[in-house]
């Protein structure tokens, strides 16, 4: 386990920035109430076996006692580095992203299952959408009862969405909570 170096930090932050925008500072400076210390510590990012974890400082301190071979995971895994060297956010970062998301999309109950199987979000399945979405933005997908279902990349701006026909793709799928069942081994 080691902290992230310069390049890695920039890459991770850029990816998260697409989804949360200025709330990034909330993520980085979130006070953590874990641990027996009276003062709240902070959260930090650690790299272990090409996976990036979001952990509170008190936990990190105690995890240093475990050897590298035995340490499986700590805190929340938010993403991993591929063999080629690029970073991808995984579904396990959903809680973190959903709490701080700038761009949100709500799905109608009928199209929830379609998204959970890994398909993209069509306009016909859209219940609500936040204003001022630009193509290429990170979007978090919710159900109508405000349960986060996953996230993706916006394919069209909000204005264009209005003129789209009902079968046009609005959000390109990146990760959804159905993966916990489908890709159990890879997580």
């Amino acid at each position, binding site marked *: 386990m080691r902290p992230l170096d310069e390049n890695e930090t920039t890459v991770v932050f850029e990816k998260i920035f697409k989804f949360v925008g200025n709330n990034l500072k909330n993520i980085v400076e979130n006070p953590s*109430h874990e641990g027996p210390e009276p003062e709240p510590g902070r959260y930090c990012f650690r790299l272990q076996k090409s996976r990036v974890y979001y952990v509170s400082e008190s936990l990190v301190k105690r995890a240093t006692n475990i050897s590298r071979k035995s340490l499986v995971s700590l805190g929340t895994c938010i993403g991993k580095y591929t063999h080629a060297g690029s970073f991808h956010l995984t579904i396990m970062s959903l809680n*973190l992203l*959903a*709490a*701080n998301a700038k761009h949100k999309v709500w799905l109608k109950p009928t199209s929830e299952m379609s998204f959970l199987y890994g398909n993209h979000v069509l306009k016909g399945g859209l219940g609500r959408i936040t*204003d*001022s979405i630009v193509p290429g933005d990170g979007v978090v997908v919710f159900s109508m009862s405000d349960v986060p279902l996953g996230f993706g990349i916006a394919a069209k701006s909000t*204005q264009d969405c*209005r*003129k789209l026909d009902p079968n046009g793709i609005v959000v390109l799928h990146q990760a959804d909570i159905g993966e916990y069942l489908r890709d159990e081994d890879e997580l």
Partner: protein
Amino acid sequence: MRTTRRESNEIQVDPVDVLPVKTLDGKLHFRTVTKKSKLAEADPEEAEEDVLEDEHILNKSQRRAKAKRVKGGKETRDGSEVKELSAEESFENKKNRLAELGMLLLSDPEANIRSLKEMLDISKDENAKIVKLCLLSVLAVFKDIIPGYRIRLPTDKELEMKVSKEVKKTRFYESTLLKAYKSYLQKLMAFERQSVYNQVANRCICTLLDAKPHFNFRDNLLTAVVRNISSPDEVVRRLCCSTVRSLFSNEGKHGGELTVQAVRLIADQVKSQNCQLHPNSIEVFMSIRFDEDIGKRDREEANKKKFKKNDKRNNQEEQNQVQENERKKSKREMMSKIRDEVNADYKGVTYEPDAMERRKMQTVTLSAVFETYFRILRKTMYSIGESSTEEEDTTLNPGAFGPHPLLAPCLDGLAKFTQQLDLDYIGDLMNYLKKLASSSSVSTNSKKKNSKLLTVSERLRCCLVAFKVMRSNLNALNVDLQDFFVQLYNLLLEYRPGRDSGEVLAESLKIMLCDDRHQDMQKAAAFVKRLSTFALCFGCAESMSALVTVKNLLQRNVKCRNLLENDAGGGSVSGSIAKYQPYATDPNLSGAFASVLWELNLLTKHYHPAISTMAGSISNMNTSQNQTFLSAVTPQQAFADYSLVKESFEPKNESRKLSNKRKREWW
């Protein structure tokens, strides 16, 4: 002490009515009043000077000077008296002459058209009152004798032709009328510049334009009226605005062309004055009525042109259907033919332009109206943006009407006409509104002047308009205006009862929170919490409107009722935020679920019975049996009912509650 010298010019006043004055010498002087009171009508300024002077200190030289002031300049008693009478007499004579001429003209205009000239000559008199009377009487005459059609003077060719006596007579009448009208208008324009006659002249112009908007020279009249639409004189301004408004609503009289012109002129004035006009000048736009489907019809036609390419394919399909309905088709054709004939006859009689022209004119009007609105918005944005970069404001001094006088009516107009706006512009409009709404009036640098930044009410209005625009352009896509919610959340903290308008706040609460079909859970909870804290801080009216909104939100979002339970840390529903941030700027990040609505407990002990009962009913919402009804009161109604302006302390709630029997059950 009476002296004979004084009797010539003064009337003795009975000492019983007016007590005498004792000077330092010890002499008693009795108050006197001059005979010049009658002349006071004709020469108001002179008379005022006379009355104000202390008459009892007159000496010979002053008396002589006074006598000279009287027209004629004779010093003897008889001479001055004769002069006074003749001035008054001439005034009466002139009035009578005016009345005579007026009656003559009204009774038989064609024969007596020359008397118009005489009437106009009277207006060259020196006496201000006479001139005013003359102008008004000529106005009354013109109102009656102007015909219902535009007079077109005969061309040279027509003059050469031999015509019958009658036609000659009519031509003579028309040309004299037109000449007289022209000179009358010129006089009016000249008089308008003089401050003495300003109001009368304006009244004449406005009445003429209002009564006969189809007649010649209406363009000049219109320019004069629009020029005064922002005059600092309130009477003139109100006259002009009401005239313009009646022009807009009575389009039949002038066939719509004046609307276009008036709007264009107003737009030009806004441009030249750099948006420093009185708000009334833009409020007149609200009286314009547009056909609902102007923009849409154009789009449909454009679409039809596109589809003509596919005609061949469609024709075959259509032919099959047509054969079945031949009888119906022939019937339909007959009906449409008859309808066309009727329409053509109708068109020949009325002034109404046909549909195409009307649509063209309305499109031009619409574009001019929106151009003005966007110009105002842009100017407001620039004035805000520049104030943050420059410390010296050389060009942005607020005019006589305040920093952003036109913003409020502009926003109202936008809200009214949004249906006519094309979808492409809505995106731009929303961007502008977002920037306007987020401009705050708090500046860190004390050198900067705050007067140019928007007030809380103006920002609330921006949010309101944004929502109205969005609502009217729904198009099956429900867009969540997050930024405006953030603005509203922060504006709740900045609101101050005396300075900001509570009605705008109540309206924005209603439109943004109560009317929305689906609310984000976190956001709704954040608003519930902040609104209940808000209800604690202000008077009855604001508290009531806030509580009504809270009740509405809690009834709709069942999960928010967690706030009514004492569940530390938010329980299962809250997000990652473990502690409530009362000063958070973003409602989604406030962690409202981690809090409890303890404010309701305090509010149940409020001095006003309605508020305490409302707070009690909200607290019991979870445990009560009957939850199927939604409260019918809107925040605006609540605000209006309980506002201190009315100063009534009667609990009006009871009359409403009696009507709904269910409400009695659970308390």
